């Protein structure tokens, strides 16, 4: 047995383990998943501030703010704070023109310093009971905030993450992301059940104000402040939940290079933040975040990368053999006239069955996520797109992120931002 095969078995064992673990969690908790379609009426409406940090967003910031203004929430209880992080375009002018006289919208301007500085400035200027953030390429479902607030009925819950959807997918790459997000909903909800959710996504995660009072403001955190704050909460034993029916619609990268850039940043952020919080690993007091979520993240990164290299090595081997054949006896030998299909030559190696199991489990996870969010379980072509595109492209951003992590090359958050402009139009 070659070294490659041994590594394959070890990594695939852990990968299957992760999927089975999530699936068992799903079976245990599936009745607790509630998707509400009716309008909610809360007993009391706590005060909420939603911060919208923006940089050069003159064209789409209004859609984000409008969607917040359309939230079904009492007017006096919801404050919207838009922070212009030193935009070079006319963002500040647009904001003043549209919302200068709107008492529900609080406008702040500062020198450019990065997303976390914009968030922190708004944090200093609010005394609401709950704080949220909404990236200026996103919009929210009118019921989203109320649905999230109901999760705070549990006194222990300190932050709640929403379900992120792709806004109006048009291109293949966007449909693939839609399928990925469906799976992400499932993963997030299961990790929330395990009390091990590792991220409070930038778009519309809501926190109790006292979280910031206790653990401090946002940090730069390798341009993934939403991962860092979640890990910091775990360090302090603060619970993060996930609200599957709080829908947030985000602009998503619409080309492979843009998606690649975004994911390099996410994965890079995950690796660096996980290493910054290495004390969480395998400590009983931190629970599943250290025993399951963070190790699973690393295994997924190395697993996906290795699987591609493993299959590529086999494909190259095959092609190499064919090249020798062509060199020796010519091109015509590739097309033998007496070709007969014989099932004998179908591979029946153990690793093939394990790969099939793994793919089935990923598809099941995706279906479960889809049913959880949309209440339907149909097969659609975006699943195929997801499997094909991500199997091939994902390992490259994983490799690049690891490369960057080793040499500490950060990617720029703001540089990615323009992808959403066209989608919001």
């Amino acid at each position: 047995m070659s070294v490659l095969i041994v590594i394959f078995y070890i990594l695939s064992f852990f990968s299957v383990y992760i999927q089975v673990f999530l699936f068992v969690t799903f079976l245990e908790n599936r009745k607790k998943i509630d998707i509400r379609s009716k309008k909610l009426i809360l007993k009391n409406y706590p005060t909420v501030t939603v911060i919208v940090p923006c940089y050069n967003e003159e064209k789409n910031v209004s859609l984000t703010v409008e969607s917040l203004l359309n939230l079904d929430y009492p007017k006096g209880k919801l404050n919207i704070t838009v922070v212009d992080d030193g935009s070079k375009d006319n963002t500040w002018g647009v904001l003043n023109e549209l919302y200068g006289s709107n008492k529900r919208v609080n406008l702040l301007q500062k020198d450019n310093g990065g997303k976390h500085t914009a968030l922190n400035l708004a944090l200093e200027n609010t005394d609401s009971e709950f704080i949220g953030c909404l990236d200026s390429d996103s919009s929210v479902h009118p019921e989203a905030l109320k649905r999230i607030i109901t999760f705070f009925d549990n006194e222990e819950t300190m932050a709640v993450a929403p379900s992120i959807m792709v806004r109006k997918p048009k291109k293949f790459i966007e449909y693939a992301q839609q399928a990925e997000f469906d799976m992400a909903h499932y993963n997030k909800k299961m990790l929330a059940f395990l009390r091990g959710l590792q991220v409070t996504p930038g778009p519309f995660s809501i926190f109790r104000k006292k979280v910031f009072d206790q653990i401090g403001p946002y940090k730069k955190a390798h341009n993934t402040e939403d991962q860092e704050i979640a890990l910091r909460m775990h360090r302090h034993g603060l619970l993060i939940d996930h609200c599957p029916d709080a829908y947030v619609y985000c602009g998503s990268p619409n080309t492979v290079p843009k998606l690649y850039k975004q994911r390099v940043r996410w994965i890079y952020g995950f690796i660096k933040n996980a290493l910054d919080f290495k004390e969480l690993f395998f400590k009983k007091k931190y629970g599943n975040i250290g025993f399951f979520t963070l190790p699973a993240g690393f295994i997924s990164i190395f697993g996906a990368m290795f699987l591609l290299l493993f299959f590529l090595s086999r494909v190259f081997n095959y092609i190499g053999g064919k090249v020798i054949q062509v060199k020796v006896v010519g091109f015509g030998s590739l097309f033998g006239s007496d070709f007969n299909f014989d099932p004998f030559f179908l591979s029946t190696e153990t690793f093939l069955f394990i790969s099939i199991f793994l793919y089935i489990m990923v598809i099941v996870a995706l279906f479960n996520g889809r049913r959880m969010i949309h209440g339907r379980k149909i097969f659609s072509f975006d699943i195929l797109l997801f499997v094909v595109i991500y199997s091939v492209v994902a390992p490259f951003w994983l490799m690049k992120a690891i490369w960057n992590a080793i040499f500490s090359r950060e990617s720029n958050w703001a540089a990615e931002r323009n992808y959403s402009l066209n989608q919001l139009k």
Partner: protein
Amino acid sequence: MKNDWKKYIIVFFITTALFATAAGLSNFFSNKKLDNLRSIQSKLATDILSAETQFSLLSELSCNQDTDNWNLSPELNELADKISYSEGSFRSSDELVELKRYYSLLEIKDYLLTKRINEKCGEKFVPLLYFYTTAENCPDCVKQGHVLTSLRQSYPNLRVYSFDYSLDLSALKALIRIYEIDDTKLPALIINEKKATGFKTIEDIEEIAPEILKLKTISDIKKEKEETEEELKIEKELSESN
């Protein structure tokens, strides 16, 4: 976290069970494949034994269509392909080595029979013995394999018998002794008793044994077959009209 310990252990067992299922499935199909190999081999053994018996019974064998069409190569080749594939993929068990030994023995028997037919009925076939090795890395053997496959496809009456030099089989050892094959000079070819060592191209082989060029090509054979079928058809039509 307390309850989760149980879950970590249960999931471990479920995952192990899934892996065991994958291994079990693979084993099941491997055994099916071995069964397939055994059945081809047993059919071949019967065919060769039958031919030998026929040959012995008719000491004055008349050269007829049977000898003209004496050809177990397709089965032998199929078996060779399948054994070689199995070695590379699903297992390298003692059972497979045993199958390979038996296969080599069948090849030698077929080789001897082909030689006898040639002696009696004229040079209908060109036997070619090919010695390679799997004991060490032999890129030239891979290339030689492609050349021989290609030649075999062009000239069905070129009978290629491949032998793994490293295989422990006394009949094979005898063959190696007779032709003085040296394991440092592999691949080695014996074409109509003429020895050639090292990688040989199609042109090299045709030069060493020009009799190959006189063999019927695949298109000749196809053409003959079509003509025979056509004749049969006409005869049938004639008899029907009469």
